[in-house]
């Protein structure tokens, strides 16, 4: 068998197609992006090598700093609002309620729908004249609160964050729910025999045992938030006056609207590094706590 599995020709045959695609689309581009980020280049002709100047410019560019800050707002909102709600729902559902499957299925629906569709839908919800939100506020007598949610620099960012939270709560709920379901029922029975209430069981047994899944959820929430593009692109394109600009939308604009290929590539590299660092940091955080 070892002879058969050591067949070099066969190994090449099996690996070749996927390897070529990965090399072409993922591996080479990382190197290309890193290289472009050292150039002053408009995408046509030859760029001039300017060393780390693009990176220096990044950290002095108020638009970029704002976009990073906004991306972090997305990440923070995910952790502070989305995950607790998801965890609570998962705990309640996994406890065994009536219509358990129904709830799980319904909560998950927004997750599978395209973010573009979700974005267009929320745009209508936020519509200043005919949107559901303002209509609702008017009906309950809060007319003074109504506004052009996406067009107001004060609310554009929050209005972009809400749909993302809304869409993915079901996702984290399902992850955590599956995690709880995979904990041996013996543990819960033992807790019951010892007289622990549901709340106590959650805090002392379920949540600590969920740590590996919580780490996954945490990582996805943070890294996902830093990569947000679709929803902001559809809702506001980062406007008004960059109030809701995130790094992804700024990068696409810098490259394809302003033709600053080098400078935009520096942003791309920044996102890659930022995600990588956060992967490591979250990994460390969860390890130390155990």
């Amino acid at each position, binding site marked *: *068998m070892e002879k*058969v*599995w*050591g*067949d*070099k020709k*066969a*190994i090449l045959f*099996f*690996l070749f*197609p*996927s390897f070529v695609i*990965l090399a072409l*689309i*993922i*591996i080479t*581009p*990382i190197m*290309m*992006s890193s290289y*472009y980020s050292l150039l002053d280049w408009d995408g046509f002709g030859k760029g001039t090598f300017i060393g780390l100047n693009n990176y220096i410019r990044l950290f002095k560019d108020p638009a970029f700093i704002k976009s990073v800050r906004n991306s972090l707002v997305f990440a923070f909102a995910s952790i502070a609002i989305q995950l607790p709600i998801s965890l609570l729902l998962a705990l309640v559902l996994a406890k065994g*309620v*009536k*219509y358990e499957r*129904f709830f799980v299925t*319904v*909560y*998950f*629906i*927004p997750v*599978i*729908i*395209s*973010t*573009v*569709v979700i974005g267009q*839908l929320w745009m209508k*919800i936020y519509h200043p004249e*005919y949107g559901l939100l303002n*209509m609702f506020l008017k009906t309950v007598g809060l007319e003074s609160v109504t506004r052009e949610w996406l067009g107001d620099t004060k609310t554009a960012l929050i209005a972009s964050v809400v749909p993302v939270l*809304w869409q993915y*709560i*079901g*996702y984290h709920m*399902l*992850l955590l729910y599956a*995690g709880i379901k995979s904990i041996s029922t013996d543990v819960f029975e033992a807790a019951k025999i010892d*007289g622990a*209430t549901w709340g106590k069981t959650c805090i002392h047994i379920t949540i600590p045992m969920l740590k590996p899944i919580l780490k996954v959820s945490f990582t*996805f929430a943070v*890294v996902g938030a830093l990569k947000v593009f679709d929803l902001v692109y559809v809702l506001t394109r980062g406007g008004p006056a960059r109030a809701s600009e995130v790094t992804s939308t700024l*990068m*696409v604009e810098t490259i*394809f609207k302003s033709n600053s*290929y080098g400078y935009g590539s520096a942003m*791309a590299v920044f*996102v*890659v590094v930022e*995600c*990588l660092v956060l992967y490591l940091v979250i990994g460390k955080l969860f390890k130390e706590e155990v």
Partner: protein
Amino acid sequence: MKANLLMGAEDSIKTTTEPPKQKVSSGIMYSLLFVWAAIQIFPIYWLVTFSLKGNSEIFGGNALGLPKEWLWGNYTKAIVNGNVGRYFINSVIVTGATILITVIVSLMATYALTRMIFKLKKPMNTLYMLGLTVPIHSALLPVFIMLRNFKLVNSYTALILPYVAFAIPMAVMIFAGFMTSIPIELEESACLDGCSIYQVFFKIIVPLMKPAVATVAIFTFLQAWNELMFAVVFISDTKYKTLTVGIQSLAGQYTIDWGAIGAGLVVATIPTLIIYIFMSRKVQDSLVMGAVKG
């Protein structure tokens, strides 16, 4: 120790005297669960109803109810005049090809990466898994330039290639988890019977991988069907626009005709919903599996 015992006793007293209180709290719990279900589902209900209404109903008195007059014409408008039919076909082509290629090349790669023996196996595995953490941002511009050089901007290939590339790592991971659970003895006995390695792979392994293929197919479907960033940058020609980009054009074309936009959004969502309705368990499992293994 004493304190523990005491606490335990207290708790057990509590639980024995709690039933009426528990009923109230479970009532609250169920109402909250249903309210949350409504929050998650209501916007979608609203979308479906306004896709069948005219502006007078949406903007007038009937924003929330079922349409008084069912305007199926909105759908004709979106599909024919708004090109949603075209976009839909493009999405089917791009997504279908992406799934097919991803499944085939990933199955092959997984076989080499889990079963076969070669020197660079470890680093090769790491390389494939690296793709899981790389954001697509880093590929956007370089791939665009490659496509431009090969005159492939505005083509199906422009989307299929990147979609496949970014689907491979996850597919390999899901496949690998499944493949390692297949007993080696099957392949060994086939080898003794004189099967070649290719026969072992195609006749024994591939048929056994069917459940994992379904998982990967669903995962890849959702990724490709809903992707926007590549699609927006690589495609500007209506002929090749997929639904995500197409919907953006539709919304620009019919800014004040909500019914037509709604119809387009519904059409874009129907395949996903159908898959979900018939395979909700499988869809959920595939997304959970993708996350947890990653």
